[in-house]
């Protein structure tokens, strides 16, 4: 029983890690991004995360798009913590793999 549970946990961690490892772009939605002191403060906090290559802020849409260095993994929990540090309430966070999408299109 215990070994089955352990196996399930290992499989779960593997799946989650795989999803994050495949993600090379993260889209974060927050409220109150119109103020430059807040928006660029959030950018500053997110830049502290290891593995973030580039940050693009879409103030009008309230979106932050993070490009992740190839092969690097960033966790949703760390992201949420940094967003809270910047004085925002994290809303939607979406991990995507743009290359995969591009390949699928091709």
């Amino acid at each position, binding site marked *: 029983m215990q070994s089955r549970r352990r196996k399930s946990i290992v499989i779960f961690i593997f799946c989650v890690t795989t999803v994050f490892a495949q993600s090379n772009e993260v889209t974060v939605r927050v409220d109150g991004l*119109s*103020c*430059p*002191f*807040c928006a*660029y*403060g959030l*950018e*500053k906090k997110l*830049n502290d995360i290891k593995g973030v290559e580039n940050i693009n802020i879409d103030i009008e849409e309230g979106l932050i798009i993070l490009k992740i260095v190839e092969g690097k993994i960033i966790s949703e929990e760390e992201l949420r913590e940094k967003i809270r540090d910047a*004085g925002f309430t994290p809303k939607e966070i979406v991990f995507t793999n743009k290359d995969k999408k591009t390949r699928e299109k091709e």
Partner: protein
Amino acid sequence: MLKILCLLFTGLFTFVSCKDSEKSEINPEWKFVRTIKLNDITPTGLQAEGNFLWISDVKNNRVIKTNLNGEVVKEYSDIKRPMHLSVYNSKVFVPEYPSDKIIIIENGYAEEYPLQEKPEAPAGVFVNDSLIAVADFYNHRIVLQINNENIILGKAGHNKGELYYPTDLTIRNDKVYVADAYNNRVQVFDYKGNSLKVIGEKDKINVATGIEVTAKNIFVTDFEGSRILIYNLDGILIETLKDNFNHPTDVTYHNNAIFVSNYGDNTVSVIHLAD
């Protein structure tokens, strides 16, 4: 009886005089004159110097000097996310938000100004001949560096003497005026850290981003409300300017005019004191 009548008359005369002087202060009539369009400049900080404007172009990571028509005459690039700047003795002091540094531009060169107490996200700076003061956004405080001494004004919170994400400051007659941005008010401190006055708490300011103080007035930018609130030095609201602003971030006074940077539409509004 005569004495009582004299006293009553004197009292009435004083009351009427006071009312008149108050009334004349309450109607200064600042008037919108024109808009300066900025080409691909997203302004956060603004300072007037002679017939020129120094502007922090936050989106493009640069500091710009323009003439009063908005034409760029000088550009200093590679200054990351510049915020509320200060001009003193032909030197421009710029808070660089992500690096937690103050950059000084002098004789065409930009270099780091040595700060003893490191801020986290400096949003505003003020400099005069005896001190440098920094609005320390994420530490919810103002840091005064006077010679080798550091004085801290405020701490995180919402009560008197506390600050919540301060973005700008200015100093006049040894009083420190702070745009206490997310407490939606202005707060005035002395150099010992005592809070002397809280201004604008009942005026429905929605993020007090920028501040300027003259011999007679305190000007505050209401970012989300797209307004400029004008107070006298006692903190009494004397005028609210509502039109011709779009998410204002900073305000600066020069030659009987105020200039307001509009982050929302990349412009500067010019307002003159009516004759």
